[in-house]
Protein backbone atom coordinates (compact mmCIF):
# COMPACT_ATOMS: atom_id res chain seq x y z
CA UNK A 1 0.00 0.00 0.00
CA UNK A 2 1.23 3.45 -0.87
CA UNK A 3 2.31 5.18 2.34
CA UNK A 4 1.85 8.76 3.47
CA UNK A 5 5.11 10.71 3.38
CA UNK A 6 6.88 12.75 6.07
CA UNK A 7 9.09 15.47 4.59
CA UNK A 8 11.49 17.72 6.51
CA UNK A 9 12.17 21.01 4.73
CA UNK A 10 15.66 22.51 4.91
CA UNK A 11 16.22 26.19 4.09
CA UNK A 12 19.74 26.66 2.76
CA UNK A 13 21.63 29.95 2.84
CA UNK A 14 25.24 30.13 1.65
CA UNK A 15 25.66 26.39 2.00
CA UNK A 16 24.18 26.07 5.51
CA UNK A 17 20.74 25.08 6.76
CA UNK A 18 19.12 28.01 8.54
CA UNK A 19 15.85 28.59 10.31
CA UNK A 20 12.93 29.32 8.01
CA UNK A 21 12.49 32.82 6.69
CA UNK A 22 9.24 33.26 8.58
CA UNK A 23 11.15 33.07 11.82
CA UNK A 24 13.12 35.96 13.26
CA UNK A 25 16.72 35.68 14.41
CA UNK A 26 17.90 33.59 11.50
CA UNK A 27 20.72 31.51 12.84
CA UNK A 28 22.95 28.76 11.65
CA UNK A 29 21.42 25.34 12.30
CA UNK A 30 23.44 22.67 10.58
CA UNK A 31 25.40 21.34 7.69
CA UNK A 32 22.88 20.30 5.01
CA UNK A 33 24.56 17.00 4.21
CA UNK A 34 24.83 16.01 7.88
CA UNK A 35 21.24 16.98 8.58
CA UNK A 36 20.03 15.14 5.46
CA UNK A 37 21.85 12.03 6.60
CA UNK A 38 20.36 12.29 10.07
CA UNK A 39 16.83 12.61 8.64
CA UNK A 40 17.45 9.71 6.28
CA UNK A 41 18.43 7.50 9.23
CA UNK A 42 15.46 8.72 11.26
CA UNK A 43 13.06 7.56 8.54
CA UNK A 44 12.20 10.73 6.61
CA UNK A 45 10.56 9.68 3.35
CA UNK A 46 11.79 12.59 1.29
CA UNK A 47 13.55 15.90 1.81
CA UNK A 48 13.06 19.40 0.45
CA UNK A 49 15.96 21.83 0.09
CA UNK A 50 14.98 25.41 -0.32
CA UNK A 51 17.54 27.90 -1.64
CA UNK A 52 16.96 31.18 0.18
CA UNK A 53 20.06 32.92 -1.15
CA UNK A 54 19.70 35.69 -3.65
CA UNK A 55 22.97 36.13 -5.54
CA UNK A 56 24.11 34.00 -8.45
CA UNK A 57 27.39 33.33 -6.72
CA UNK A 58 25.59 31.73 -3.78
CA UNK A 59 23.43 29.78 -6.23
CA UNK A 60 26.53 27.86 -7.34
CA UNK A 61 27.20 26.96 -3.70
CA UNK A 62 23.64 25.66 -3.50
CA UNK A 63 24.07 23.44 -6.57
CA UNK A 64 27.21 22.01 -4.91
CA UNK A 65 25.14 21.25 -1.82
CA UNK A 66 22.60 19.42 -4.01
CA UNK A 67 25.35 17.30 -5.48
CA UNK A 68 26.86 16.48 -2.07
CA UNK A 69 23.44 15.46 -0.74
CA UNK A 70 22.78 13.24 -3.78
CA UNK A 71 26.14 11.55 -3.24
CA UNK A 72 25.40 10.79 0.40
CA UNK A 73 21.75 9.89 0.72
CA UNK A 74 19.63 7.39 -1.19
CA UNK A 75 16.16 8.88 -0.67
CA UNK A 76 14.39 11.29 -3.00
CA UNK A 77 14.65 15.02 -2.57
CA UNK A 78 13.11 18.12 -4.07
CA UNK A 79 14.87 21.40 -4.67
CA UNK A 80 13.17 24.78 -4.73
CA UNK A 81 13.81 28.49 -4.41
CA UNK A 82 14.89 30.82 -7.18
CA UNK A 83 14.01 28.42 -10.00
CA UNK A 84 13.18 30.66 -12.98
CA UNK A 85 14.21 28.89 -16.18
CA UNK A 86 14.48 25.49 -17.83
CA UNK A 87 18.27 25.84 -17.40
CA UNK A 88 17.86 26.33 -13.63
CA UNK A 89 15.81 23.13 -13.53
CA UNK A 90 18.31 21.24 -15.62
CA UNK A 91 21.23 22.29 -13.42
CA UNK A 92 19.70 20.99 -10.17
CA UNK A 93 18.39 17.78 -11.76
CA UNK A 94 21.82 17.15 -13.25
CA UNK A 95 23.34 17.70 -9.82
CA UNK A 96 21.17 14.89 -8.44
CA UNK A 97 17.82 16.40 -7.36
CA UNK A 98 14.77 14.26 -8.11
CA UNK A 99 12.15 16.97 -8.26
CA UNK A 100 12.11 20.70 -8.71
CA UNK A 101 9.63 22.96 -7.01
CA UNK A 102 8.51 26.10 -8.85
CA UNK A 103 6.56 28.93 -7.25
CA UNK A 104 6.66 32.60 -8.36
CA UNK A 105 8.15 31.87 -11.79
CA UNK A 106 5.22 29.56 -12.62
CA UNK A 107 2.71 32.32 -11.85
CA UNK A 108 4.59 34.85 -13.94
CA UNK A 109 5.24 32.39 -16.74
CA UNK A 110 2.91 29.35 -16.69
CA UNK A 111 4.57 28.05 -19.87
CA UNK A 112 7.58 27.14 -17.74
CA UNK A 113 5.65 24.29 -16.09
CA UNK A 114 4.49 22.98 -19.44
CA UNK A 115 7.92 23.17 -21.06
CA UNK A 116 9.67 21.62 -18.06
CA UNK A 117 7.13 18.79 -17.74
CA UNK A 118 7.61 17.93 -21.42
CA UNK A 119 11.37 18.03 -21.19
CA UNK A 120 12.00 16.33 -17.85
CA UNK A 121 8.75 14.44 -17.20
CA UNK A 122 5.77 15.47 -15.08
CA UNK A 123 7.00 13.43 -12.12
CA UNK A 124 9.82 15.86 -11.39
CA UNK A 125 7.90 19.12 -11.71
CA UNK A 126 6.33 20.29 -8.46
CA UNK A 127 4.09 23.35 -8.36
CA UNK A 128 4.46 25.13 -5.04
CA UNK A 129 1.58 27.43 -4.10
CA UNK A 130 1.62 30.00 -1.27
CA UNK A 131 -2.02 30.64 -0.40
CA UNK A 132 -3.73 32.96 2.03
CA UNK A 133 -7.40 32.79 2.91
CA UNK A 134 -9.38 35.92 2.05
CA UNK A 135 -12.49 37.25 3.80
CA UNK A 136 -14.84 35.55 1.35
CA UNK A 137 -13.38 32.16 2.33
CA UNK A 138 -11.37 31.63 -0.85
CA UNK A 139 -7.60 31.40 -1.10
CA UNK A 140 -5.52 34.00 -2.89
CA UNK A 141 -2.19 32.98 -4.42
CA UNK A 142 0.84 34.93 -3.21
CA UNK A 143 4.29 35.12 -4.77
CA UNK A 144 7.73 36.44 -3.81
CA UNK A 145 7.81 34.58 -0.52
CA UNK A 146 4.30 35.63 0.46
CA UNK A 147 4.93 39.34 -0.06
CA UNK A 148 2.86 39.89 -3.19
CA UNK A 149 -0.77 39.00 -3.72
CA UNK A 150 -1.85 37.89 -7.19
CA UNK A 151 -5.30 37.77 -8.79
CA UNK A 152 -5.19 33.98 -8.84
CA UNK A 153 -7.41 31.72 -6.78
CA UNK A 154 -5.42 28.82 -5.30
CA UNK A 155 -7.93 26.09 -6.23
CA UNK A 156 -8.13 27.28 -9.86
CA UNK A 157 -4.37 27.71 -10.04
CA UNK A 158 -3.84 24.18 -8.71
CA UNK A 159 -6.16 22.81 -11.42
CA UNK A 160 -4.37 24.82 -14.08
CA UNK A 161 -1.00 23.64 -12.77
CA UNK A 162 -2.12 20.03 -13.07
CA UNK A 163 -3.31 20.66 -16.64
CA UNK A 164 0.03 22.28 -17.51
CA UNK A 165 1.86 19.17 -16.35
CA UNK A 166 2.79 19.53 -12.68
CA UNK A 167 3.17 16.09 -11.12
CA UNK A 168 2.72 17.21 -7.52
CA UNK A 169 1.51 20.22 -5.53
CA UNK A 170 2.96 21.75 -2.39
CA UNK A 171 0.31 23.85 -0.64
CA UNK A 172 1.74 26.29 1.82
CA UNK A 173 -0.89 28.07 3.89
CA UNK A 174 0.37 31.51 4.84
CA UNK A 175 -2.27 31.91 7.60
CA UNK A 176 -1.15 28.84 9.47
CA UNK A 177 2.57 28.93 8.67
CA UNK A 178 4.74 29.34 11.76
CA UNK A 179 1.72 29.30 14.09
CA UNK A 180 2.09 25.64 15.07
CA UNK A 181 -1.68 25.30 15.37
CA UNK A 182 -2.11 22.75 12.61
CA UNK A 183 -2.24 22.65 8.83
CA UNK A 184 -4.97 24.46 6.87
CA UNK A 185 -7.26 21.46 6.41
CA UNK A 186 -9.87 23.41 4.45
CA UNK A 187 -7.32 24.46 1.85
CA UNK A 188 -6.03 20.89 1.46
CA UNK A 189 -9.57 19.60 1.13
CA UNK A 190 -10.64 22.20 -1.42
CA UNK A 191 -7.62 21.51 -3.63
CA UNK A 192 -7.76 17.72 -3.18
CA UNK A 193 -11.35 17.78 -4.49
CA UNK A 194 -10.21 19.66 -7.59
CA UNK A 195 -7.10 17.75 -8.69
CA UNK A 196 -5.88 14.16 -9.09
CA UNK A 197 -2.15 14.62 -8.36
CA UNK A 198 -0.43 14.17 -4.98
CA UNK A 199 -0.63 17.04 -2.47
CA UNK A 200 2.05 17.96 0.04
CA UNK A 201 0.71 20.00 2.97
CA UNK A 202 2.93 22.74 4.36
CA UNK A 203 2.63 25.32 7.12
CA UNK A 204 1.37 24.91 10.65
CA UNK A 205 2.78 21.68 12.10
CA UNK A 206 3.23 21.93 15.85
CA UNK A 207 2.05 18.64 17.30
CA UNK A 208 1.90 15.03 16.14
CA UNK A 209 -1.91 15.26 15.97
CA UNK A 210 -1.56 17.88 13.23
CA UNK A 211 0.15 15.31 11.01
CA UNK A 212 -2.51 12.67 11.60
CA UNK A 213 -5.24 15.21 10.80
CA UNK A 214 -3.78 16.39 7.50
CA UNK A 215 -2.84 12.87 6.35
CA UNK A 216 -6.43 11.64 6.42
CA UNK A 217 -7.62 10.39 3.00
CA UNK A 218 -9.41 13.55 1.86
CA UNK A 219 -6.56 15.95 2.59
CA UNK A 220 -2.86 15.49 1.83
CA UNK A 221 -0.56 12.68 0.65
CA UNK A 222 2.49 14.06 2.43
CA UNK A 223 3.21 16.50 5.24
CA UNK A 224 6.11 18.92 5.21
CA UNK A 225 7.56 20.65 8.26
CA UNK A 226 10.77 22.38 9.30
CA UNK A 227 11.28 23.70 12.82
CA UNK A 228 9.52 20.87 14.69
CA UNK A 229 12.03 18.50 13.11
CA UNK A 230 15.14 20.72 13.20
CA UNK A 231 14.76 21.41 16.92
CA UNK A 232 13.84 17.86 17.81
CA UNK A 233 10.38 18.87 19.09
CA UNK A 234 8.93 16.00 17.08
CA UNK A 235 11.34 13.12 16.43
CA UNK A 236 10.44 11.39 13.15
CA UNK A 237 10.55 7.82 14.58
CA UNK A 238 8.08 8.83 17.33
CA UNK A 239 5.89 10.59 14.78
CA UNK A 240 5.76 7.54 12.53
CA UNK A 241 4.98 5.24 15.45
CA UNK A 242 2.17 7.60 16.48
CA UNK A 243 0.74 7.81 12.93
CA UNK A 244 0.68 4.02 12.71
CA UNK A 245 -1.45 3.89 15.86
CA UNK A 246 -3.81 6.38 14.21
CA UNK A 247 -4.37 4.05 11.25
CA UNK A 248 -2.19 6.02 8.86
CA UNK A 249 0.05 3.87 6.69
CA UNK A 250 3.66 4.95 6.93
CA UNK A 251 6.91 3.40 5.81
CA UNK A 252 8.59 1.70 8.78
CA UNK A 253 11.86 3.21 9.99
CA UNK A 254 14.72 1.52 8.11
CA UNK A 255 17.05 -0.61 10.28
Amino acid sequence: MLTKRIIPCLDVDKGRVVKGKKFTNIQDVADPVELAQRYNEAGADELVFYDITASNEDRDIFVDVVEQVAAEIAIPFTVGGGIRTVEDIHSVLRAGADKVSINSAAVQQPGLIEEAAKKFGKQCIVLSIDAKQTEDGRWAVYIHGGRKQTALNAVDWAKQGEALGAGELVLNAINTDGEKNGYDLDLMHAVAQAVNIPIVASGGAGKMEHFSQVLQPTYADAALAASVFHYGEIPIPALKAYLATQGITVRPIPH
Partner: protein
Amino acid sequence: MISIIDYGAGNTKSLQFALNKMGVDSHITTDKTIIEKSNAIILPGVGAFQDAMHALDTQNLTSFIKQEAATGKPLLGICLGMQLFYESSEEDGETKGFGFLTGKVKKIPNDVKVPHMGWNNLHKYRNSSLCKQITDEAFVYFVHSYAATDVDTNTLVASTAYGMRIPAIVQQNNIIGMQFHPEKSGATGLQLLANFKEMIA
Protein backbone atom coordinates in the same frame (compact mmCIF):
# COMPACT_ATOMS: atom_id res chain seq x y z
CA MET B 1 32.20 -1.51 -15.47
CA ILE B 2 28.58 -0.56 -16.12
CA SER B 3 27.35 1.75 -18.86
CA ILE B 4 24.47 4.02 -17.89
CA ILE B 5 22.83 5.04 -21.14
CA ASP B 6 22.50 8.80 -21.40
CA TYR B 7 19.39 9.47 -23.41
CA GLY B 8 18.63 13.02 -22.43
CA ALA B 9 17.74 14.99 -19.36
CA GLY B 10 17.22 13.77 -15.84
CA ASN B 11 18.83 12.56 -12.68
CA THR B 12 21.35 9.90 -13.70
CA LYS B 13 23.88 11.23 -11.17
CA SER B 14 22.13 9.58 -8.20
CA LEU B 15 22.35 6.19 -9.89
CA GLN B 16 26.05 6.67 -10.46
CA PHE B 17 26.52 7.74 -6.82
CA ALA B 18 24.70 4.59 -5.66
CA LEU B 19 26.93 2.39 -7.83
CA ASN B 20 30.03 4.24 -6.54
CA LYS B 21 29.03 3.34 -2.98
CA MET B 22 29.17 -0.33 -3.94
CA GLY B 23 32.54 0.13 -5.59
CA VAL B 24 31.14 -0.31 -9.10
CA ASP B 25 32.72 1.76 -11.82
CA SER B 26 30.20 3.31 -14.21
CA HIS B 27 30.02 5.68 -17.16
CA ILE B 28 27.08 7.83 -18.18
CA THR B 29 27.49 7.48 -21.92
CA THR B 30 26.19 6.99 -25.46
CA ASP B 31 29.59 5.86 -26.74
CA LYS B 32 29.24 2.41 -28.37
CA THR B 33 32.84 1.38 -27.76
CA ILE B 34 32.40 2.03 -24.03
CA ILE B 35 29.02 0.27 -23.96
CA GLU B 36 30.47 -2.72 -25.79
CA LYS B 37 33.32 -3.04 -23.29
CA SER B 38 31.06 -2.78 -20.24
CA ASN B 39 29.86 -5.82 -18.27
CA ALA B 40 26.32 -4.55 -17.96
CA ILE B 41 24.03 -1.84 -19.24
CA ILE B 42 21.55 0.26 -17.29
CA LEU B 43 18.76 2.25 -18.91
CA PRO B 44 17.85 4.89 -16.33
CA GLY B 45 14.42 6.30 -16.07
CA VAL B 46 13.41 9.90 -16.37
CA GLY B 47 11.36 11.53 -19.10
CA ALA B 48 8.75 10.37 -21.58
CA PHE B 49 8.62 7.10 -23.55
CA GLN B 50 8.42 8.60 -27.03
CA ASP B 51 11.24 11.11 -26.43
CA ALA B 52 13.44 8.38 -24.98
CA MET B 53 12.92 5.96 -27.90
CA HIS B 54 13.43 8.83 -30.32
CA ALA B 55 16.70 9.82 -28.61
CA LEU B 56 17.92 6.19 -28.73
CA ASP B 57 16.91 5.80 -32.40
CA THR B 58 18.61 9.04 -33.42
CA GLN B 59 21.88 7.86 -31.91
CA ASN B 60 21.48 4.40 -33.48
CA LEU B 61 21.45 2.93 -30.01
CA THR B 62 18.21 0.92 -30.25
CA SER B 63 19.58 -1.79 -32.54
CA PHE B 64 22.96 -1.65 -30.83
CA ILE B 65 21.45 -2.29 -27.40
CA LYS B 66 19.41 -5.15 -28.90
CA GLN B 67 22.63 -6.72 -30.19
CA GLU B 68 24.28 -6.28 -26.80
CA ALA B 69 21.29 -7.87 -25.06
CA ALA B 70 21.46 -10.82 -27.47
CA THR B 71 24.99 -11.60 -26.24
CA GLY B 72 23.52 -12.23 -22.77
CA LYS B 73 24.91 -9.07 -21.18
CA PRO B 74 22.82 -8.07 -18.13
CA LEU B 75 20.52 -5.19 -18.95
CA LEU B 76 18.72 -3.30 -16.17
CA GLY B 77 15.91 -0.88 -16.98
CA ILE B 78 14.86 1.49 -14.21
CA CYS B 79 11.41 3.15 -14.21
CA LEU B 80 10.96 4.42 -17.78
CA GLY B 81 14.00 2.32 -18.70
CA MET B 82 12.05 -0.82 -17.73
CA GLN B 83 8.99 0.35 -19.70
CA LEU B 84 11.14 0.70 -22.82
CA PHE B 85 11.76 -3.09 -22.70
CA TYR B 86 8.09 -3.83 -23.53
CA GLU B 87 6.41 -4.01 -26.93
CA SER B 88 4.84 -0.58 -26.87
CA SER B 89 3.54 2.30 -24.78
CA GLU B 90 0.50 4.50 -25.15
CA GLU B 91 2.33 7.53 -23.68
CA ASP B 92 2.09 10.46 -26.13
CA GLY B 93 0.50 8.15 -28.71
CA GLU B 94 1.35 4.50 -29.45
CA THR B 95 5.15 4.08 -29.59
CA LYS B 96 7.14 0.89 -30.09
CA GLY B 97 9.66 -0.17 -27.46
CA PHE B 98 12.52 -2.67 -27.55
CA GLY B 99 10.10 -5.60 -27.41
CA PHE B 100 12.31 -7.71 -25.13
CA LEU B 101 9.33 -8.43 -22.90
CA THR B 102 5.73 -9.29 -23.69
CA GLY B 103 3.31 -6.60 -22.58
CA LYS B 104 2.10 -3.08 -23.20
CA VAL B 105 2.71 0.04 -21.15
CA LYS B 106 -0.49 1.87 -20.23
CA LYS B 107 -1.53 4.82 -18.10
CA ILE B 108 -2.41 4.01 -14.49
CA PRO B 109 -6.24 4.35 -14.28
CA ASN B 110 -7.47 7.68 -12.89
CA ASP B 111 -9.38 6.16 -9.96
CA VAL B 112 -6.16 6.67 -7.98
CA LYS B 113 -3.94 9.76 -7.99
CA VAL B 114 -1.52 9.84 -10.89
CA PRO B 115 1.51 9.87 -10.74
CA HIS B 116 1.94 6.97 -8.34
CA MET B 117 4.40 8.80 -6.12
CA GLY B 118 5.99 7.57 -2.91
CA TRP B 119 6.98 4.46 -0.98
CA ASN B 120 5.06 1.28 -1.73
CA ASN B 121 5.70 -2.35 -0.75
CA LEU B 122 6.92 -5.26 -2.84
CA HIS B 123 4.99 -8.53 -3.03
CA LYS B 124 7.32 -11.29 -4.10
CA TYR B 125 6.13 -13.69 -6.79
CA ARG B 126 9.05 -16.04 -6.89
CA ASN B 127 12.49 -16.53 -5.52
CA SER B 128 15.15 -14.79 -7.48
CA SER B 129 18.76 -13.95 -6.72
CA LEU B 130 17.65 -10.36 -7.37
CA CYS B 131 15.69 -10.43 -4.10
CA LYS B 132 18.47 -11.83 -1.93
CA GLN B 133 18.22 -10.29 1.57
CA ILE B 134 15.11 -8.35 0.59
CA THR B 135 12.37 -8.89 3.14
CA ASP B 136 8.84 -9.58 1.98
CA GLU B 137 6.82 -6.36 1.81
CA ALA B 138 9.96 -4.18 1.74
CA PHE B 139 9.28 -0.57 0.73
CA VAL B 140 10.73 1.08 -2.37
CA TYR B 141 10.22 4.49 -3.97
CA PHE B 142 7.97 4.76 -7.02
CA VAL B 143 7.27 7.73 -9.22
CA HIS B 144 5.51 6.98 -12.51
CA SER B 145 2.24 7.51 -14.38
CA TYR B 146 2.45 4.51 -16.73
CA ALA B 147 2.92 0.83 -15.96
CA ALA B 148 3.39 -2.48 -17.78
CA THR B 149 0.20 -4.47 -18.41
CA ASP B 150 -0.57 -7.90 -19.93
CA VAL B 151 2.87 -9.09 -18.87
CA ASP B 152 3.99 -12.72 -18.94
CA THR B 153 3.54 -13.76 -15.29
CA ASN B 154 6.62 -15.99 -15.58
CA THR B 155 8.69 -12.79 -15.75
CA LEU B 156 7.19 -11.33 -12.56
CA VAL B 157 9.59 -11.30 -9.61
CA ALA B 158 7.68 -8.77 -7.50
CA SER B 159 4.70 -6.49 -7.87
CA THR B 160 3.09 -3.66 -5.98
CA ALA B 161 -0.54 -2.58 -5.73
CA TYR B 162 -1.74 0.84 -6.77
CA GLY B 163 -5.15 0.91 -8.45
CA MET B 164 -3.96 -2.18 -10.31
CA ARG B 165 -1.25 -4.81 -10.00
CA ILE B 166 1.92 -3.02 -11.01
CA PRO B 167 4.89 -5.15 -12.10
CA ALA B 168 7.70 -3.85 -9.87
CA ILE B 169 10.60 -6.24 -10.57
CA VAL B 170 10.61 -8.32 -13.73
CA GLN B 171 13.22 -10.64 -15.14
CA GLN B 172 13.60 -12.68 -18.29
CA ASN B 173 17.10 -14.17 -18.38
CA ASN B 174 19.49 -11.19 -18.69
CA ILE B 175 16.71 -8.61 -19.10
CA ILE B 176 15.74 -7.03 -15.76
CA GLY B 177 13.32 -4.24 -15.01
CA MET B 178 12.61 -2.25 -11.86
CA GLN B 179 9.63 0.11 -12.03
CA PHE B 180 10.74 1.98 -8.87
CA HIS B 181 14.01 3.81 -8.29
CA PRO B 182 16.46 1.51 -6.46
CA GLU B 183 18.95 4.38 -6.25
CA LYS B 184 16.35 6.32 -4.23
CA SER B 185 14.96 3.47 -2.16
CA GLY B 186 17.30 3.63 0.81
CA ALA B 187 19.03 0.49 2.05
CA THR B 188 16.52 -1.79 0.25
CA GLY B 189 17.31 -0.17 -3.08
CA LEU B 190 21.06 -0.38 -2.55
CA GLN B 191 20.70 -4.08 -1.71
CA LEU B 192 18.75 -4.63 -4.95
CA LEU B 193 21.51 -2.91 -6.93
CA ALA B 194 24.09 -5.02 -5.09
CA ASN B 195 22.12 -8.14 -6.10
CA PHE B 196 22.17 -6.95 -9.71
CA LYS B 197 25.94 -6.46 -9.41
CA GLU B 198 26.27 -10.10 -8.31
CA MET B 199 24.81 -11.16 -11.67
CA ILE B 200 27.49 -9.35 -13.59
CA ALA B 201 30.28 -11.56 -14.84
